[in-house]
């Protein structure tokens, strides 16, 4: 499990290494936030260093506050003339998109481009949040009934986790479609609960039927978990979260993937511990569920350590 997580993270970090894409077609190839009060601009060709170092040729503001001009303290231009680092008097709020307008640099009369945190990084951060920081089992205390029921052995645990991830991704995607195109336009927000749970039942029914026909052997090993998915509180929590945060499709996908994998991770960890506990000496009254709860409590405390994690 560790190796898989590492490879996934490695992959994501590489993807995320890209800087934000510039909007102005020719002058600028990329922009990014540097240190707390820096914006780094990459030019497509070498520009006149004196021009690029002149603060008067830049107008910088946050996208939502176009009338508040940010004060540039100094500009450092690289020797190649293809990079300029703008240092500001105050730390920048890198959560917001910033707009940079240049006047008369590199022969271009007026150019405008935006600077924001890489979108892939933002998507990855949603995934990491749902997976670790806000793990649905250990931090949000959802899905516990199913969790304690299926975490006795590693194979049931992984089976449940995988089935759950598949169902949640499909169900939440459909929920997103219905939310954006039916519930919101017609102001039927109060029907969220009914619609979301209905979609989940439908998905489970569909997966059940398909699996039965397509791969009966797989169905034999995994089919029993399908019924349990609907009793899992997470399955209704994720669409509700998606609706209240107004995520777009990719963000929803990341959220549901994170929730599913987080559940799988929690199940795997728990089952590893429970298998060993079964062989330990435990007081009669604590055997079974009580000790499982105590173990879960310790996991919850451990996961608190992820609080405030910010990779991107």
């Amino acid at each position: 499990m560790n190796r898989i997580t590492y490879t996934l993270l490695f992959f994501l970090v590489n993807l995320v290494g890209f800087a934000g894409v510039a909007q102005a077609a020719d002058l600028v190839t990329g922009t990014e936030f540097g240190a707390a009060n820096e914006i780094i601009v990459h030019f497509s060709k070498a520009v006149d260093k004196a021009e690029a170092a002149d603060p008067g040729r830049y107008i910088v503001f946050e996208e939502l506050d176009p009338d508040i001009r940010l004060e540039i303290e100094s500009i450092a231009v690289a020797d190649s003339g293809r990079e300029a680092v703008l240092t500001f008097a105050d730390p920048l709020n890198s959560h917001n998109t910033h707009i940079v307008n240049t006047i008369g640099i590199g022969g271009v009369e007026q150019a405008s481009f935006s600077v924001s945190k890489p979108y892939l990084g933002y998507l990855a951060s949603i995934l990491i949040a749902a997976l670790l920081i806000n793990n649905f089992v250990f931090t949000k205390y959802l899905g516990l009934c199913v969790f304690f029921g299926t975490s006795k052995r590693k194979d049931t645990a992984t089976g449940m986790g995988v089935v759950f991830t598949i169902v949640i991704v499909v169900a939440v995607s459909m929920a997103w479609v219905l939310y954006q195109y039916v519930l919101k336009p017609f102001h039927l927000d109060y029907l969220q609960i009914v619609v979301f749970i209905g979609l989940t039942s439908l998905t489970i029914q569909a997966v059940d039927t398909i699996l039965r026909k397509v791969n009966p052997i797989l169905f034999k090993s995994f089919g029993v978990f399908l019924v349990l998915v609907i009793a899992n509180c997470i399955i209704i929590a994720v669409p509700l979260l998606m609706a209240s945060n107004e995520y777009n499709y990719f963000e929803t996908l990341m959220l549901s993937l994170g929730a599913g994998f987080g559940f799988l991770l929690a199940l795997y960890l728990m089952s590893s511990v429970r298998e060993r506990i079964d062989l330990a000496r435990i007081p009669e009254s604590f055997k079974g569920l009580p000790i499982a709860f105590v173990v879960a409590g310790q996991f919850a405390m451990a996961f608190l350590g992820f609080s405030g994690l910010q990779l991107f």
Partner: protein
Amino acid sequence: MATEKTHGQLVADGILKENPIFKLALSMCPAVGISTTVMNGIMLGIAVLMVQVLSSVTISALKDFIHPRIRIPTYTLTIATWVTVIDLSLAAYFPAAYIKMGIFVKIIVAFAIITMRLEMFACKESVPASFWDGLGMGLGFLIGMVVLGAVRELLGSGALLGYDVLGFKPLLFFILPSAGFFVVGLMMGFFNWIEEFYKARKRG
């Protein structure tokens, strides 16, 4: 097929023999997440009680109308409807409490306990019997949540229902979210131990 239990017995069963939290180990998500104060426990307990009773009564009243092939979707629909009603009402009339409970009111729709009750009892029994059975289950949940909330609030912030009882905070740990697991686990162990104790006494 009417049940032979009296109404009182139905209620008592729900509270003691088949207590959802401590015995059946169902609907544990709020037990761990929300039971930081007695007030939270009461409010969520009442919400679950109402959903359970209303759903039981509705299904029992409509039991002849529901086609057996689609009974599970119908149960889900009924529960979802009543959860939405309770959710909207709580948000409108008790906003302060509603904010504290967050998403947990909406999550009631995923509680296995309610669907199970409908499947096992309400679809076969008469309306009054279903009412009392639902009441018993709901009360069991409510009492469980209140007990948990009392333990955590008393030991965590030295207060009960917001009133300062102890005058100091014994262990802040108890109201931290992760402590929910510990408290429920310890209480379950405790209940088991009491049961073992009484069984041993009966035998010996």
